[in-house]
């Protein structure tokens, strides 16, 4: 091999890898990103799956992208433009609906219609969740200290964490403890009485997660999804102009502006090592590229058992990777529509179609959907989070026509009998039939239907078992335990080989936090 042209090679052009590349390039490291597919983004991609219709194929909305990353990389200049979702509507089985709007007064009036008590509670609840998001924010941006270590760095980190928790005061600390340990249903039961409200709120506790609203641990996932900020407003979700692929492209543009090189159609087969250090990578084409640093944006299973020879890794690490749970449970149905869906509960066009539609009429509905999946079937009556991107960004579809993105829980990766084509279609049918109960004209509008099972997600993006977070967001594999104890600081036992994907702290969602923290750690280590 010729002497390295690159200081660092990033394996995988997903958003975390791109963020890491941008930060490294900004620090004058000669950086190369290698992406297997023809387009960048991993699970944050926009594709014209049907002529004239652009789908945010996998991820579809954004909230958690770290403000410091947006700032540091000047992403708005590179095309980042997030348009807030203005509402969430939950159709109810009795023909009524529950809506929440970006205007707090409107939301309060709407909630009062169903439960005046809940309308009051929602104000206090919102304030508390804001404080909780603030309480967790510093933890998101910190490299997890190792509680079993005695190194000064770790002890300092632990002390800082301890001081931070004490500074919350007992009331907020206890509230945080509850959020970290309870089920979302139990947590919400303490605040609210109106079931569809509880169900809609608890639904963010089951996103991408193989838990039901009654499962302990789902309140954490609820909090995780609350942590997003848009323009300083917590808990605001938005739609990127051009689809989530444009987020990836914006980050890539920033990386290139700092000098990073990006190659697509360049899948990495192996990471090359000698004497316990990386020397570069080998592409599936056979081409070898040298570098002293290789950063994997792939998930922990691929990072540790596919890209490198497991003989190079200690048994405990491999055991931890074996125990690390993926368990994809989400599906996606993307539709090209010839017109607008008509919601029976709110007929006609209106601002509500520019927001999200949540199929979550009750906690029992969600819990039963989970029960189906536990025993290896997709939910007969699934939870669905629906947006119509073309209502927010008309460029996503031809004039008068629309794209609809439907995120679905649950579709277990390990389906009884496996995901055959027939099963995929049956899953798609279940989704459409469920939606048709609330928007009867939907079937007549469908020009094209794309159904993605966890099996498809794995096959296309590489995400093991189709888990959208590169591993479950469960307490036993978060923070200093993510992905495995002792290797939760982005390093690996192989010198020069790093991890920067969502399989590290703070986990998944389009956050970019892992990519940034990894890059910062790399820069600290070389210094």
């Amino acid at each position: 091999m010729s002497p390295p042209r690159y200081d660092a090679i990033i394996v995988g052009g997903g958003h975390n890898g791109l963020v890491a590349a941008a930060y490294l390039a900004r620090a004058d490291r000669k950086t190369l990103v290698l992406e297997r597919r023809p387009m960048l983004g991993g699970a944050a991609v926009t594709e014209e799956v049907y002529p004239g219709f652009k789908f945010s194929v996998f991820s579809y909305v954004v909230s958690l992208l770290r403000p410091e990353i947006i700032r540091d990389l000047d992403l708005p200049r590179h095309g980042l433009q997030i348009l807030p979702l203005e509402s969430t509507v939950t159709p109810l089985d009795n023909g009524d609906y529950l809506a929440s709007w970006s205007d707090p007064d409107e939301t309060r009036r709407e909630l009062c219609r169903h439960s005046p008590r809940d309308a009051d509670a929602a104000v206090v609840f919102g304030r508390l969740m804001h404080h909780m998001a603030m309480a967790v924010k510093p933890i998101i941006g910190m490299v997890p200290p190792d509680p079993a270590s005695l190194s000064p760095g770790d002890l300092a980190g632990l002390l800082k964490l301890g001081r931070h928790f004490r500074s919350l005061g007992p009331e907020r600390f206890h509230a945080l403890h509850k959020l970290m340990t309870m089920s979302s249903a139990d947590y919400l039961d303490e605040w609210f009485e109106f079931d569809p409200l509880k169900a809609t709120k608890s639904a963010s506790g089951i996103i991408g997660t193989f838990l039901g609203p009654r499962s302990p641990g789902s309140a954490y996932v609820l909090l995780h999804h609350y942590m997003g900020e848009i323009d300083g407003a917590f808990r605001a979700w938005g739609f990127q102009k051009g689809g989530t692929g444009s987020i990836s492209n914006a980050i890539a543009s920033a990386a290139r502006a700092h000098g990073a090189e990006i190659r697509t159609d360049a899948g990495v087969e192996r990471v090359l090592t000698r004497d316990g250090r990386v020397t570069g990578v080998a592409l599936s084409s056979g081409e070898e590229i040298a570098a002293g640093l290789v950063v994997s944006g792939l998930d922990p299973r691929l990072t540790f058992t596919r890209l490198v020879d497991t003989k190079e890794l200690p048994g405990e690490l491999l055991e931890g990777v074996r125990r690390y749970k993926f368990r994809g449970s989400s599906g996606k149905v993307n539709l090209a529509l010839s017109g607008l869906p008509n919601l029976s509960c709110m007929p006609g066009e209106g601002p509500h179609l520019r927001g999200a539609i949540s199929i979550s009429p009750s906690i029992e509905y969600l819990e039963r959907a989970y029960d189906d999946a536990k025993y290896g079937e997709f939910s007969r009556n699934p939870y669905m989070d629906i947006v119509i991107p073309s209502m927010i960004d008309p460029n996503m579809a031809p004039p008068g026509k629309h794209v609809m993105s439907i995120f679905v829980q649950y579709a277990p990766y390990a389906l009884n009998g496996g995901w055959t084509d027939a099963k995929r279609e049956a899953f798609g049918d279940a989704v459409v039939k469920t939606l048709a109960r609330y928007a009867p004209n939907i079937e007549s509008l469908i020009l094209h239907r794309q159904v993605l099972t966890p099996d498809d997600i794995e096959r296309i993006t590489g995400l093991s078992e189709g888990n959208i977070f590169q591993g479950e967001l469960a307490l036993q594999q978060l923070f200093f335990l993510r992905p495995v104890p002792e290797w939760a600081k982005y390093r690996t036992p192989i010198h020069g080989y790093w991890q920067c994907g969502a399989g590290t702290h703070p986990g998944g969602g389009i956050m970019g936090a892992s990519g940034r923290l990894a890059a910062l750690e790399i820069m600290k280590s070389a210094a």
Partner: protein
Amino acid sequence: MSAFRHDVIVIGGGSNGLVAAACLGRAGLRVLLLERDEKLGGQSRLVEFAPGFRAAPLGLDPGWLPDPIASALGLTSLKRAEVAADISVMVEPGTFLSLPRDVARAAEAIAPHSAADAAKWPEFTARMRKLAGFLESVYQAPAPDIAASSLGELVPLLGLGRKFRALGRRDMVEFLRTLPLSVWELLDDWFESAPLKAAVAAGGIQDHQQGPRSGGTGFVLLHNLVGAPQGAVRGRGPWRDGPEAFTLAAEQAARRFGVTVRTDAAVRQIRVQDDAVTGVIAGDGEEITAKAVLSTANPARTFLEWVDPVWLDPEFLHAMGNIRHRGCTAFVAYALERLPDVPGIGSDAMAGMISLTATIPALERAADAAKYGMVSERPHVEFTVPTLTAPQLATGGRHVLVARAQYAPYRLRPGAIWDAASRDALGKAVTGAIEAVSPCFQSRVLHQATWTPRDLEERFGLREGAVSHGELGLDQILFMRPVAGWGGHSTPIQGLYLGGAGSHPGPGILGGAGWLASRRILSDRKRRIEARA
């Protein structure tokens, strides 16, 4: 001197009340213990459920007796019964996997099901023992509190910290990891044999309204293993001298330390004046004064039924009302003409627990029903024959069998209630489950008594029929038990303390909370006396 007749009134004559009373008496305080029932013992109480037949349905595993408590009360000679196998789990009718406490013999029993599992059994049981051992340390100290600031509060934390580090790197991480884990995951990570996994997993859902797939059941498993020797995966086992052994010995100790014990003495009200307790009003209307009151009854009951809300912060009351209890276990006691025949196990195995649920998915399916307010179609049933270790429970060489069934949720679907009909149906379901592995079982039954969660609430004073006095969720333990910020056994009312299973360290620990509460009372007294001086 003092106008008060007693220094402390202890409400409740279960293990916590008896231990607290004895400890306070030993420290020289004048203690009055009030027990609502005619007998002491709380959950270990023997009930004559049919003429000539007695059982302690809630006392099948009396719990862990921590050494300091045994020493303080002079109870170090209490012995457990020798049981052939702690647990035998059905593989299918006619075939059982029996797990002796002896690790090597258990491995031999496991080997035909899975050689790999047999090889891992010693390591698994050692690991569980080590983790449960650390939990024991946590349970013998006041709950760690983030708001701790005084030296007195921080010192025990440091001691705990040292014990934590002494686990070593791997086990420190394993401990933290196991707490939020589900037993499903925990056991899948270790073993392959379905019945073996089911046998151990049942300890993670015992009296807990969650399935084995739920997070936090790893913690519940560890909690139920405190005080259990290595290899005993279903708790501590019965006393050699019968279910009342601890109660009788503790009562003796209490009396020896000068405690006045009154049974048939319910409490109707706890009297408060100017934010301080003044005494109680008994069921018959008698007012009894005291400087301090320690309630070992359910915390929510204590505050919501016995204390005038005018003295309490609305948020505190709200939190008390929000404590999740979720009793979901029903018990059935049978008076038998003779021992049942269970093909596949010998009669001596029935001195331990027999579990009729062969797989973890079956446990999970049983748990599903409770979420929707229904009784499991195929409940998880376990049973034991206490007369094999305590023959005196039945006359004339006959036998008693006690079964536990989950899930029978206290809160049923709208329209359904716990009444004679639903009790009967449940009793029949349990009988049917036993009959399926023991032909002719039904023909040997002389009498049968069923306790639904509603019955447990009435007969044993358990709110929502919850044996735990407050679900063992990770948000309802330590400094969160019984409510956030009040994990130290004191309450917002001066002189009023909580020391039952609804407080740290929780259920299944004989005298655990009572002992810590008594120490709190004594240290508060000392501080007040010093302040006055």
